[in-house]
């Protein structure tokens, strides 16, 4: 193949090499996909293999047995997680939804841009930092770890998430709804609350559920706020157990039986999160505004 005429013929070495590289890279890309999917299957497999066998009714009903004894359960942690999530919702939803309303309905371009930017930046703050902040804010002054502190930590994490998702769904509501309200002489705030938010309600709820699924699995923010507890929590101003915390302390303990229970707890946690995600999918299915 003289340089004067680089017309490749199908047989020449360069063409064969190029074809080989093409095939090889296709294989590499496929391999990447397989490797990326593998961890999920591996984790799920072991969760079910190890966790299912350790799940029994006791697990859901009992408290942990004293150290070293086998048996017992994580009933308190499951309930604790639910309580913490409820508190998080109480804090996160009002601020998040109202803030989202501001961004979607009132925001001038300057303020909204910076608030959105700040929200995205906040989403990137390591969750353990939230724990430290709430520790300084609520644990130190009251001299006690508490469920409140844990709920606040999770709630603060939810605010930027809910704000962004709320804004996104509100923006999707057609302008014609608002214009119809204006034409009827209804005050703007009523239009927003009664018409626009009502129209976007499903989207707002799914946004909250997504944020919940995110914070339900968080451990770090709870480490020095809720702290964890081996007994029922009777007083929200006291430490409280949570599934992720219990999994963490059991997994890093030296006892085999606790390891077993850690797997079981992990299975329950992932099923909770999966349940939330399925609920989100179900709610998002027939979403149209006409």
């Amino acid at each position, binding site marked *: 193949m003289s340089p004067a005429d680089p*017309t*490749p013929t*199908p047989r020449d070495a360069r*063409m064969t090499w190029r074809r080989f590289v093409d095939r090889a890279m*296709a294989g590499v890309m496929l391999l990447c996909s397989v490797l990326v999917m593998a961890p999920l299957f591996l984790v799920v497999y072991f969760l079910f293999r190890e966790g299912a066998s350790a799940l029994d009714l006791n697990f859901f009903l009992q408290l942990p047995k004293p150290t070293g004894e086998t048996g017992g359960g994580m009933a308190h942690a499951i309930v604790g997680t639910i309580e913490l999530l409820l508190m998080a919702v109480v804090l996160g939803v009002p601020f998040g939804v109202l803030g989202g309303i501001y961004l979607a309905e009132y925001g001038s371009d300057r303020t909204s841009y910076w608030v959105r930017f700040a929200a995205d930046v906040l989403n990137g703050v390591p969750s353990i930092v939230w724990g430290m902040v709430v520790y300084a804010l609520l644990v130190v002054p009251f001299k006690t770890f508490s469920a409140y502190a844990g709920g606040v930590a999770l709630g603060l994490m939810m605010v930027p998430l809910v704000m962004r998702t709320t804004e996104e769904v509100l923006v999707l509501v057609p302008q014609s709804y608002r214009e119809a309200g204006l034409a009827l002489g209804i005050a703007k705030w009523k239009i927003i609350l009664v018409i626009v938010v009502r129209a976007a309600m499903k989207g707002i709820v799914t946004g909250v559920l997504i944020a919940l699924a995110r914070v339900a699995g968080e451990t770090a923010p709870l480490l020095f706020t809720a702290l964890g507890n081996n007994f029922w929590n009777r007083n929200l101003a006291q430490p409280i157990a949570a599934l992720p915390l219990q999994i963490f302390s059991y997994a890093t303990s030296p006892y085999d039986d606790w390891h077993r229970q850690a797997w079981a707890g992990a299975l329950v946690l992932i099923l909770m999160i999966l349940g939330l995600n399925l609920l989100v999918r179900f709610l998002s299915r027939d979403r149209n505004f006409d």
Partner: protein
Amino acid sequence: MLTMAEPPASNPTVLPSQPVPSAAASAPAPVASGEVAFDIENFSLWYGARQALHEVTIRIPATRVTAIIGPSGCGKSTFLRALNRMHELTPGTRLEGRLRLKGQDLYSAEVDPTVVRRRVGMVFQKSNPFPTMTIAENVLCGLRLNGVTDRAFLRQRLEESLRMAALWDEVKDRLFRPGVSLSGGQQQRLCIARAIAVRPEVLLLDEPCSALDPIATAKVEELIHELKKSYTIVIVTHNMQQAARTSDRTAFFYLGRLVEYDETRTIFMNPANPQTEAYVSGRFG
């Protein structure tokens, strides 16, 4: 123009069935003199269930400019893209019939579409120089793909191609600036230079001037006039005056069929087919 889905890996086209000899809708006028570049017989193409080209039979001469005209949706771009197997980038296409370039069946099983595209170059409606490459890198891209590394040769080919594209004087001092730093008309000429740098046998132009102003258009048309001395050119255009100005032969397509194909003068002054006459006199399209 059809939008392209995410391009699939090269999948083999359906092998063309035996061409059915049939009385063509309009018998192709005999080529006056010189070689035949494309010899196409009963060529049909489907996008899924929709048939886009119906039994097109045409012989395109070498070193001449052949224009393809017709109203929107008549299949002219589809036909053009079939000449270098670009339609294969859309999944679900199927074809029948025979398409030969200088005697070789472009769609036979042993032919590599990559090689076809090297032999049949293409310039697009909207100029598309590679933005991360310099002017020089853009022009030489095709040569480098084929493994040419001789610097002297590359330099020479670079200058030749840019001169042939009437761009050399304008860019010779800034060959290492990004390709996208040029004006629209210059970018299109850059794309032409890029296409001819690999010395293809045929140059396909898909409405190359539709995004250009009249001055840039005039420059490109001048270019086509020069290029046809060494290249076979097939140009799709919706601008009839452009077809009349630049081409030797013209093919009129309508609803996926080749309606009439003749010397350009005949098509525009004295068309045989009433549909052709209606189109070129502006009564529809």
